[in-house]
């Protein structure tokens, strides 16, 4: 059976933009299907994560993971050079790309030079980030996603709504409909039947693919090894069946030692899906050797910067690059859980996306993302490498209003004279206690005049009313009473 990609379109192509966060959030909040799908999935993922750490001291492991990542980032330039040298020694050809466009061009040229027409892809968020599939398609090269979730999303002409579970926004019925519409199989609610159908469809394409493209979870500098974590075996197929394997990854994925991998892997699988191990863990250390019978004849590694070295320059923002892409921050985010991944309009949704996307896309487009958090801290609490996500959200809010260091693209875009004046007013009041007390006291005296409608607050809640007396005044009365009581007690004493 082959994929009928030209079959009837029942699902309109949806596009999302971070500029439209508010509208997209409104739509998602009003969509009971989306709400239910995410709530159910996130509840399940939170429970699985919580139950999976029983065999480790979570805090010790997180501390270790954070330190491994910080150490790697502290030595990033030299580790990248070591990675390149050791990969090359292993026969892996290394390419550097300053941005997504250059990376797409490198990959397209590698494909074209080999006359490749069909590419099979393992899951790679970096390739999503640079819209690789579209760029290849423009060159007449068909790229097919082989991760089941990515496959469904591609069939449905959508983008992933989660970095680990791309099709998490779809439920069984919706998937059944997509499989029926796009691949012609009978409608079924049986997950095994659908999985088997997708497997059969993909199997043919693996065999026919000229090039396999994958991501990388950890690139080990000291050995030149590319580690790939996956559950479906599609990663192994992608990286071993086609004659050419191209791995593409961001420059921050490098770790120094092979021994750094087990703790990070333990953190990644537990944080992401609550698994102790994944079904597959691939360590790719070069192309097929002369005496070997299988494996790709060529292996390439494309290292993409795309804004990352600019993040690297700032000692606070640098922490953003620790991320190992587990998705736990979105699974635990009360905002993501309610609005879903597409609402963010970015490749990386949720808390990590809100601190990463401004660097990749600029604050002009993403200015509503750093504020799309109640700063509840759930993301920072579960992050396996202890990225201070709430602090970084606040840092980006500073950048948005022009009170940061000015080194994020689009810094100052949200600065408005009106708002800045309001905060200056707040500052003046809060640093003039006499005026503050007079003001709060007046607010209490004239509480009857408090408006019962306060913008959006009162669309959903009653308006708070100032109390008749401030705490300052109550304390004064209380102290006076206590003083009197003390005095009376004094007088009674013989």
């Amino acid at each position: 059976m082959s994929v009928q990609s030209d079959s009837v379109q029942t699902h309109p192509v949806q596009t999302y933009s971070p500029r439209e966060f508010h509208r997209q959030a409104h739509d998602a909040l009003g969509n009971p299907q989306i709400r239910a799908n995410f709530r159910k999935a996130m509840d399940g993922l939170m429970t699985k994560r919580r139950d999976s750490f029983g065999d480790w001291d979570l805090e010790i492991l997180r501390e270790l993971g954070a330190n491994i990542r910080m150490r790697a980032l502290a030595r990033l330039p030299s580790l990248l050079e070591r990675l390149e040298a050791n990969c090359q020694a292993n026969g892996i050809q290394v390419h550097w790309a300053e941005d997504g466009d250059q990376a797409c061009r490198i990959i397209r040229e590698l494909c074209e030079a080999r006359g490749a027409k069909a590419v099979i892809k393992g899951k790679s968020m970096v390739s999503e980030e640079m819209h690789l599939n579209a760029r290849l398609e423009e060159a007449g090269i068909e790229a097919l996603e082989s991760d089941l979730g990515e496959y469904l999303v591609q069939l449905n002409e959508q983008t992933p709504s989660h970095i680990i579970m791309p099709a998490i926004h779809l439920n069984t019925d919706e998937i059944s409909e997509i499989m029926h519409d796009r691949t012609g199989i009978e409608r079924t609610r049986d997950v095994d039947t659908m999985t088997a159908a997708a497997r059969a469809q993909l199997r043919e394409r693996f065999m026919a693919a000229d090039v396999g493209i994958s991501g990388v979870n950890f690139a080990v500098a000291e050995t030149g090894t590319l580690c790939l974590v996956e559950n479906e075996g599609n990663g192994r197929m992608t990286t071993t069946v086609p004659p050419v394997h191209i791995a593409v990854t961001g420059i921050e994925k490098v770790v120094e030692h092979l021994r750094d991998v087990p703790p990070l892997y333990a953190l990644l699988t537990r944080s992401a899906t609550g698994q102790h191990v994944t079904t597959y863990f691939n360590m790719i250390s070069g192309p097929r050797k002369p005496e070997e019978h299988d494996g790709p004849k060529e292996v390439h590694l494309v290292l993409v910067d795309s804004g990352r070295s600019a993040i690297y320059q700032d000692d606070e923002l640098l922490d953003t690059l620790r991320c190992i892409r587990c998705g736990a921050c979105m699974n635990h985010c009360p905002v993501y859980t309610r609005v879903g991944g597409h609402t963010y309009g970015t490749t990386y949704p949720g808390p990590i996306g809100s601190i990463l996307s401004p660097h990749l896309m600029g604050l002009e487009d993403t200015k509503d993302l750093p504020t799309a958090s109640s700063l509840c801290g759930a993301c920072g609490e579960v992050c396996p490498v202890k990225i201070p996500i709430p602090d970084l959200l606040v840092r980006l809010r500073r950048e948005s209003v022009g009170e940061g260091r000015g080194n994020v693209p689009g810094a100052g875009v949200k600065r408005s004279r009106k708002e800045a004046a309001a905060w200056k007013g707040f500052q003046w009041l809060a640093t003039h206690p006499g005026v503050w007390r007079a003001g709060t006291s007046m607010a209490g005296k004239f509480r009857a005049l408090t408006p019962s409608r306060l913008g959006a607050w009162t669309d959903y809640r009653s308006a708070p009313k100032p109390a008749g007396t401030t705490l300052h005044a109550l304390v004064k009365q209380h102290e006076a009473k206590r003083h009197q009581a003390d005095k009376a007690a004094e007088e009674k004493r013989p």
Partner: protein
Amino acid sequence: MTPVKCYPSKPEKVYFFGTCLIDLFYPEAGLDGIRLLEREGIEVVFPEDQTCCGQPAYTSGYQQEARAVAAAQLELFPEPWPIVVPSGSCGGMMRTHYPQLFAGSEREAQAKGVADRVFELTEFLVHVCHLRLEDRGEPEKVAMHTSCGARREMGLADTGPALLAQLGQVELVEQARAAECCGFGGTFAVRHPEVSAAMVEDKTQAIEATGARRFVTSDCGCMMNISGRFAHQKKPVKGEHIASYLWRRTS
């Protein structure tokens, strides 16, 4: 790793930082906090010039303004007494973010000195006062919402429930997803009102589903949000600051 907090022995005097929300909207909660401390034989000093910890400006990205407001508060606590704050959110701001705000400045040591002395009220009552409570109230079911500031920034998920557990007539019930944010988030509720509303809607439903007709919290921001939602829907569930609840039932 979260540093282990070493608690001092019970002092003779403490400072009380009432917070701006309590000052303006819930002054009784502040006074009840003071009463609880005084009943333990502690003299409570309320610096008159206190205003706001500066958090609203800080979380909005207005760093200079937040720093100026915080600097004014730093001056209020010259003696080495503990500073008790009846809010995990403002307490977290003072304990965690004051040192960050003034790192590398001439106020760094002062900010660190203040931050180290900041205690959230229930934390202080449990770990410093070793408070013992005798319940004089009627039997009642109550739910507790621990603020994200108390729970995560200050690591105080247990102190509120520990105090409520001492009330013999009170049955503490736990709502579903108790650790999830209520959706207040300061200016978040204004900047993303629909998302915030969806969050508080879920929170009120979870509390209502416990059967409790009262919930307590250690943060007035959460209370304003959750109670505001209950009131808007004309639901009979009432919120109360934990300080008032404890004082009311034990005095």
